[in-house]
C-alpha cells in the first residue's frame, strides 16, 4: 500500500504546473543540445546550474534530469541525419542510422530509435521504482568504510572505462580530489590550500570547473576548425517502422534495454558505455553481422534503447546511495547540494516528494519526448542548420553570466576561463575531464568517510577489509587496476576500447 502511496505522491509532485513546466524545459533543452553537436548534456547542465538557484529544488532537479535523458533522444537525430553524434552515447547510432538515411530510410530509423528509447526509458523507470527504495534501505546500514570503498570503486570503474590513457585518467582523478580539498576543512576548521587568495576561502566552486571544462572547453574545441558541419540532404517521411522493421528490432530493443539497465546502475557506467556494449553484443548475436554498418535497423534499435535505459538507471546510485556514478549524475548531485539537499538513503525520508517526483517526472518526460521528437522532427532538422559561429558567442555569454551570477565575483570568470583552456588542452593530450569532476564531487565525502573510518578503527586500515561490502568493493577496484596494467588483460582492454572507438 505504501508503494502506491509513494507513486501517487510522485505523480502529484511531478504533475504540479511548475514541475511540468520545468520538465518540459528540461526535455526540450536536452533534445536541443542532443541535436546540436558541440555542447553535450553535461555542459548544458553546468550552464544551467546557477539558474537553479532561483527555482524550487524539485523543479530544478526534474529539469536537470530531463536534459540528460532528453539529450539521448535528440542525439539520435543528428547521428541518423547528419552523421555527427550530438553526444557520446549516440556515436554508434551513426554507423547504421546514417546508412539507413542514405538508403532513404531515415523515417524508420528515427521512428525505431524514438519508440525503442521510449520503451527502454519506461522499463528503466519501472525498474528504478522497485530497486531504489530497497537499495536505500540497505544503504542505511552502510558505515563510513563502506561508503569510502564504494566511492573508490566508482572512481576506479570510471577510470577503467576511459577510452584514452588510463594513467592520465587516474592523474585527473587525483587532481580533482586535491582541488576538492581547497578552502575550509570541515573537520578541523582549518583553511587550507588557498594560496593567500580570499576568493579561494570557500574552495574552487563546481560551477566554474564544470562550466569551464564542459562549456567553454567545448567552444575552444569547436573553434579550432569551424564550419565542418554539413547536413546530409534527406527526406524524412514515414516515421512508423514497417512490420518487418518491428520484427527485426523487437529482440534487439529488449536486449539493449536489459544491458542498458544494468550498465547504467554500475558506478562509472552510463549511457555511452551502454550503447557501445549493446551494439557489440547485437553484432555478435546477429545471424547477419555483415549487415552491421550498412544500415541494419538492429544497429539503431539496440544502442538507442540501451542508452535510454542506462541514462534512467544511472540515477539509482545517486538517489539510493548518494553516490554519483558518472559525471552527469555528479552534476545532478551538485544541483541537489545547491539546495542544501544531500542525496542518499535519507533522501527518501527527508524529501520523499523530490525522490518520487523526479522518478515520476521521467514517465511524463518520456511521453513529452515522443511528442517532441516524432511529429516535430522537421523542426529539429532545421535546427541542425544553425551555424556554430552564431551558437558559440551565445553559449559563451550564457556561461559568463551564469558563473558571475553565483557569487558576483570576477575571479569566478577567471577560473572558468582557466578551466576552459585546461579542458581544451586536456582533451588534446588525452587527459579526460570526467574523472576530475567526479573526484572533485566525491572528494569531500571520501575524505569525511576515510577520516571517520580511521578514527573509528584507531588508525587501522583493516577496517576497510573486515567489512564484507567494503572488502568486495576494494577487491573489485584492485582487480580492475591490476588487470588494466597487466599483460594479457591490458592488451584485451586496449583491443576492446579500440574497437569501440572505431
Amino acid at each position: 500500500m505504501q508503494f502506491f502511496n509513494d507513486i501517487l505522491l510522485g505523480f502529484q509532485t511531478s504533475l504540479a504546473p511548475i514541475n511540468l513546466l520545468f520538465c518540459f524545459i528540461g526535455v526540450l533543452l536536452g533534445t536541443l543540445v542532443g541535436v546540436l553537436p558541440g555542447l553535450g548534456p553535461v555542459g548544458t547542465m553546468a550552464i544551467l546550474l546557477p539558474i537553479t538557484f532561483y527555482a524550487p529544488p524539485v523543479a530544478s532537479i526534474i529539469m536537470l534530469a530531463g536534459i540528460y535523458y532528453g539529450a539521448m533522444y535528440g542525439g539520435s537525430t543528428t547521428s541518423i541525419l547528419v552523421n555527427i553524434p550530438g553526444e557520446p552515447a549516440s556515436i554508434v547510432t551513426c554507423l547504421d542510422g546514417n546508412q539507413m538515411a542514405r538508403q532513404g530510410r531515415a523515417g524508420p530509423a528515427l521512428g525505431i530509435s524514438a519508440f525503442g528509447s521510449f520503451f527502454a526509458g519506461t522499463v528503466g523507470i519501472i525498474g528504478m521504482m522497485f530497486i531504489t527504495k530497497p537499495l536505500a534501505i540497505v544503504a542505511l546500514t552502510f558505515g563510513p568504510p563502506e561508503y569510502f570503498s564504494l566511492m573508490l570503486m566508482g572512481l576506479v570503474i570510471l577510470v577503467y572505462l576511459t577510452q584514452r590513457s588510463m594513467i592520465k585518467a587516474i592523474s585527473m582523478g587525483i587532481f580533482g580530489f586535491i582541488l576538492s580539498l581547497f578552502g575550509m576543512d570541515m573537520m578541523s576548521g582549518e583553511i587550507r590550500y588557498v594560496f593567500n587568495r580570499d576568493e579561494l576561502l570557500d574552495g574552487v566552486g563546481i560551477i566554474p570547473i564544470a562550466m569551464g571544462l564542459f562549456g567553454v572547453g567545448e567552444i575552444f574545441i569547436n573553434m579550432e576548425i569551424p564550419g565542418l558541419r554539413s547536413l546530409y540532404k534527406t527526406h524524412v517521411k514515414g516515421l512508423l517502422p514497417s512490420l518487418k522493421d518491428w520484427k527485426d528490432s523487437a529482440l534487439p530493443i529488449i536486449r539493449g534495454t536489459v544491458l542498458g539497465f544494468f550498465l547504467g546502475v554500475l558506478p562509472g557506467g552510463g549511457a555511452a558505455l551502454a550503447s557501445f556494449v549493446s551494439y557489440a553484443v547485437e553484432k555478435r548475436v546477429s545471424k547477419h553481422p555483415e549487415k552491421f554498418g550498412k544500415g541494419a535497423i538492429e544497429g539503431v534499435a539496440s544502442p538507442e534503447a540501451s542508452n535510454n535505459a542506462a541514462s534512467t538507471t544511472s540515477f539509482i546510485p545517486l538517489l539510493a546511495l548518494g553516490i554519483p556514478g558518472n559525471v552527469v549524475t555528479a552534476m545532478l548531485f551538485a544541483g541537489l547540494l545547491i539546495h542544501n539537499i544531500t542525496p542518499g538513503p535519507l533522501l527518501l525520508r527527508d524529501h520523499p516528494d523530490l525522490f518520487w517526483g523526479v522518478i515520476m517526472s521521467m514517465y511524463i518526460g518520456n511521453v513529452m519526448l515522443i511528442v517532441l521528437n516524432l511529429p516535430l522532427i522537421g523542426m529539429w532538422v532545421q535546427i541542425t542548420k544553425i551555424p556554430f559561429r552564431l551558437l558559440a558567442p551565445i553559449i559563451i555569454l550564457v556561461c559568463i553570466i551564469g558563473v558571475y551570477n553565483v557569487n558576483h565575483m570576477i575571479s569566478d570568470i577567471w577560473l572558468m576561463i582557466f578551466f576552459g583552456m585546461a579542458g581544451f588542452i586536456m582533451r588534446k593530450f588525452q587527459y579526460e575531464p570526467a574523472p576530475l569532476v567526479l573526484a572533485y564531487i566525491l572528494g569531500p565525502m571520501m575524505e569525511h568517510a576515510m577520516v571517520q573510518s580511521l578514527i573509528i578503527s584507531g588508525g587501522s586500515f583493516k577496517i576497510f577489509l573486515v567489512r564484507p561490502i567494503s572488502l568486495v568493493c576494494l577487491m573489485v577496484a584492485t582487480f580492475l587496476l591490476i588487470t588494466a596494467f597487466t599483460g594479457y588483460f591490458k592488451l584485451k582492454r586496449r583491443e576492446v576500447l579500440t574497437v569501440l572507438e572505431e
Partner: protein
Amino acid sequence: MRVTSLIISLFFISFSILIFIMSIELGIGSFKLPGPGFLGFLNSIFLFTLSSIIFFLDRKKADEAYEDPITRKNLTNPILLALSLFGFTLLLDILGFLISATLLMWAILLINTPKRWFRQLVVALIIVNVAYFILCKLLKVILPSGIFRLQW
C-alpha cells in the same frame, strides 16, 4: 618534440610538490587522528608519481614519429578566443557588462567569420541586448554597469 605534453606533466609535478609542502605545513596528523593535510599529502605523492611516469614516458616517445595534437594552424582561433576572454574579464568591471560583452561577442563573431565587420557588430549588439533584457530586466540578474553606469 612533445614540448606541450612535457609542460603539462611538469605543471602537475610542480603542483604536487606545492601541495606536498603545504600539506606538511598544515599538519598531516596520524592514522589515528588524521590532520587537515593528511589526504592532500597522500594525493600529492600519488600525483607526483603518476606525473613523473607520464613525463618520462613522453620523453621516451619524443624521438619517435609523433604528430603534435596542437599545431599553429589549429591553435590560432583558440588563442584568439582566449585573448578575447581575457580582455573581456579585464574590462568587465571598468566598462560594464553592455560594452565589454558587445566587444567580446563581436570578437568571437569576427574570429569565426573575419568579414563583414559591421554586420557582425550589429549581431553582437542584438545578442548582448537581448541577453541583457532577459537576464537583467526579466530575471533581475545583477551585472556590472562599469564607470559609465551604462544600463537601460
